[in-house]
């Protein structure tokens, strides 16, 4: 898209945000709630990737695992260990939810790195739903498990009494900022990286700096590969941290 626009103008034009446009997959109509869009396509591909790795990859149930089964087991063990370490032993029963989040974000991020792909996790709508789901679940879980004493999470009993109200206020604010930071961190990282790659891609059309631009794209792409994984990891581990707060609200 950026290339077309640039060709028409003849000059250097950036459309780094065009890649994030949600548009119908078939036809040019409006985007309604049930319209099949590029979002649908790339979400479906993420689901297929998860299915491919975790179900087809492990279909042989080998004692000595194949490559794909090794990766699936590695992902399982990685997330399981993380949940157990961060959220504690009683957090393990929420492991399926956390691995769902983790695998979805990992695959959505990596699929977004395919050239011409649409990155679902670069949209605040997607990450906000994920973050709000985590926030609401954790908050409701906290109240269900501990009742009103869940509010002791904000009342830091180890601090001097005079400081407690102020700390409680800070704690409450930080608690409610959680879903915001949780979602914007992921969407912002994904969006920024992809937009920067696109900007350098536009520079690549200028002969004088095109080798530099191609090199920069390569470097940023490598960085993005790292970021894709790290952001999924960060999202999952923060979910575990929030879950621990819900399970053990007493500091």
């Amino acid at each position, binding site marked *: 898209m950026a290339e077309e626009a640039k060709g028409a103008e003849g000059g250097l034009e950036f459309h780094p*945000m065009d890649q994030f446009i949600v548009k119908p997959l078939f036809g040019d109509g409006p*985007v309604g709630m049930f*319209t099949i869009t590029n979002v649908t396509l790339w979400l479906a591909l993420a689901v297929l990737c*998860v299915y491919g790795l*975790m179900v087809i990859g492990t279909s042989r149930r080998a004692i000595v695992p194949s490559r794909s089964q090794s990766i699936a087991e590695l992902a399982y063990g990685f997330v399981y260990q993380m949940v157990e370490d961060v959220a504690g032993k009683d957090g393990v029963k929420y492991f399926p939810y956390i691995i769902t989040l983790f695998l*979805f974000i990992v695959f959505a991020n990596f699929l977004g790195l395919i050239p011409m792909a649409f990155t679902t996790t*670069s949209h605040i*709508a997607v990450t906000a739903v994920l973050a709000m789901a985590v926030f609401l679940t954790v908050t409701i879980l906290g109240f269900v498990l501990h009742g009103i004493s869940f509010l002791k999470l904000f009342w830091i009993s180890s601090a001097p009494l005079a400081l407690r109200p102020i700390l409680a206020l800070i704690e409450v604010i930080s608690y409610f900022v959680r879903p915001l930071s949780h979602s914007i961190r992921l969407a912002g990282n994904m969006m920024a990286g992809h937009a920067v790659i696109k900007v350098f891609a536009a520079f690549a059309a200028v002969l004088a700096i095109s080798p530099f631009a191609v090199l920069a794209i390569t470097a940023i792409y490598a960085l993005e590969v790292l970021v894709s994984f790290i952001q999924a990891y960060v999202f999952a581990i923060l979910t575990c941290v929030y879950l621990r707060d819900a399970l053990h609200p007493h500091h």
Partner: protein
Amino acid sequence: MAEDTHATDGMDKTAEAPGMPQLDFSTFDNQIFWLVIALVAIYLILNRIALPRIASVLAERKGTVTNDIAKAEELKQAAVTAEENYKKALADARAEAQEIVAKAKADIQADLDDALAKADAEIAARSAESEKAIAEIRAGAMDAVAEVARETAAELVAVLGGKPDKAAIDAAVAERMKG
């Protein structure tokens, strides 16, 4: 449905992104709808199929490894026992061999003693017999000498012109023999 309300938004947005497409709220319901479906699908796939399967594979592997280690330990124990048995058998065999050697030596010694005693006895018997024979021969020789002496004496007496007196000759020979 929802298409009608967002028609205008959808149209001007497809051409080019005005600002951040992320902040185009008209597409939120679409994204959220499909996201929820995708998440539910992933959750079901994982929770129903993948996670139990991987958990069972991991448990099975752990069991196999534990069993193998136990088996290896058992085999090692068996090897140690076998070695002990072998050493014991070796020591037993050695002791037995020594015993057999000692016994054989003792037997041989006994046989040897027996044989020596028998040989000694035989030698003694033989020498006694020989002595007897020699004594007999000697006695026989004495008689023969006496006879020869008597005959010679009788002949001598006859030649000298005397008349041999048998009794006197006998007495003289006996007298000489004694001396």
